[in-house]
């Protein structure tokens, strides 16, 4: 088995068995990368988290690209990234086909009538845990509240919000 293929299979496994996305995927990635395959050391792995916070996109993609690149260069980065998306692609398109076909059936309607309000509760709960992790001092509270007020009064694009809050961060935390 070539190293490239091994990288692909390892990230295919990570993409297939980690539920919940985001940081919920990190323990499985750590297990495979640091302990089983020993592609990265523990401290290099901690760098992944810091790098993921600086880089846009899903954490799973960030870590796949980073590990693949560190280990086998750009080819490795591609193999790992394709691997981590592979299962998602087939599962999601497969399930999407079924859902779209039976969208008007009573069963699918019933299921989604329960799930829709549930997802709002889910996102609300995510807000609470993100709030605890990101609102850590008076400055972050000021930024969060400012953004909230602006969002409720205007139709500003989220990208503009992200960029200007970053600038606010540079200004406030330099004081």
């Amino acid at each position: 088995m070539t190293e490239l293929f091994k990288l692909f299979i390892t990230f295919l496994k990570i993409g297939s068995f980690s539920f919940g996305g985001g940081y919920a995927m990190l323990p499985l990635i750590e297990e495979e990368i640091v302990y089983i395959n020993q592609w990265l050391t523990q401290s290099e792995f901690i760098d992944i988290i810091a790098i993921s916070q600086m880089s846009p996109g899903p954490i799973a993609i960030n870590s796949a690209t980073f590990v693949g690149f560190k280990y086998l260069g750009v080819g490795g980065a591609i193999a790992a990234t394709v691997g981590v998306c592979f299962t998602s692609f087939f599962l999601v398109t497969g399930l999407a086909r079924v859902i779209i076909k039976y969208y008007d059936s009573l069963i699918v309607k019933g299921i989604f009538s329960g799930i829709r309000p549930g997802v709002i509760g889910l996102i609300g709960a995510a807000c609470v845990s993100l709030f605890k992790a990101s609102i850590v001092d008076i400055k972050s509270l000021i930024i969060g509240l400012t953004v909230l007020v602006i969002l409720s009064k205007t139709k500003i694009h989220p990208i503009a919000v992200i960029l200007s809050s970053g600038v606010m961060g540079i200004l406030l935390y330099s004081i």
Partner: protein
Amino acid sequence: MQKYLQLFWIFFRVGAFTFGGGYAMVPIIQKEIVDNAGFIENEEFLDIIAVAQSLPGAIAVNTTIFVGYKLFGILGAIFALLGTVLPSFLVILVLALFYNRIKDIQAIQRFFQGVRPAIVALIFMSAVKLGKAIDRKTFNYIIMAGAFMAIAIFKIHPILTIIGCAIAGLVHVKGDKQNDRAV
């Protein structure tokens, strides 16, 4: 071809500005796909988030594939996914090369210290907007509060919570149907 490129470009922006993973992409997809392009409704978007959360893999990746597939089939899914993944891929390559040199630049760290609280506010406003897409029925309020408490207080796994909501929805629909018959 143009519609695929449009889709790619929309998701490229989503991928480029999703900081924090998971639900951080919700506000941007909502703005781009629901509000601006009008490709899907808020209700359908909720369904897609639920499916994305319930399947293995990254939520942003799953959401992207679903939206792309729903709009323009398999090719749509591929172009949308490329859009979401590419910014992350490119930025990581640069970071992997220069990480040791940039990790100590304070301005970068302060930038992200400012971005993090903004993401919370963005996601909160998205939840409020999505909430408006739902009928004001007692059943919906109960499920919403129940799902929130299940995760925030009782630490029940999100997938189990979603399954619970699905079962409640099924039972509720069946009950409604029997009531209709009785009338």
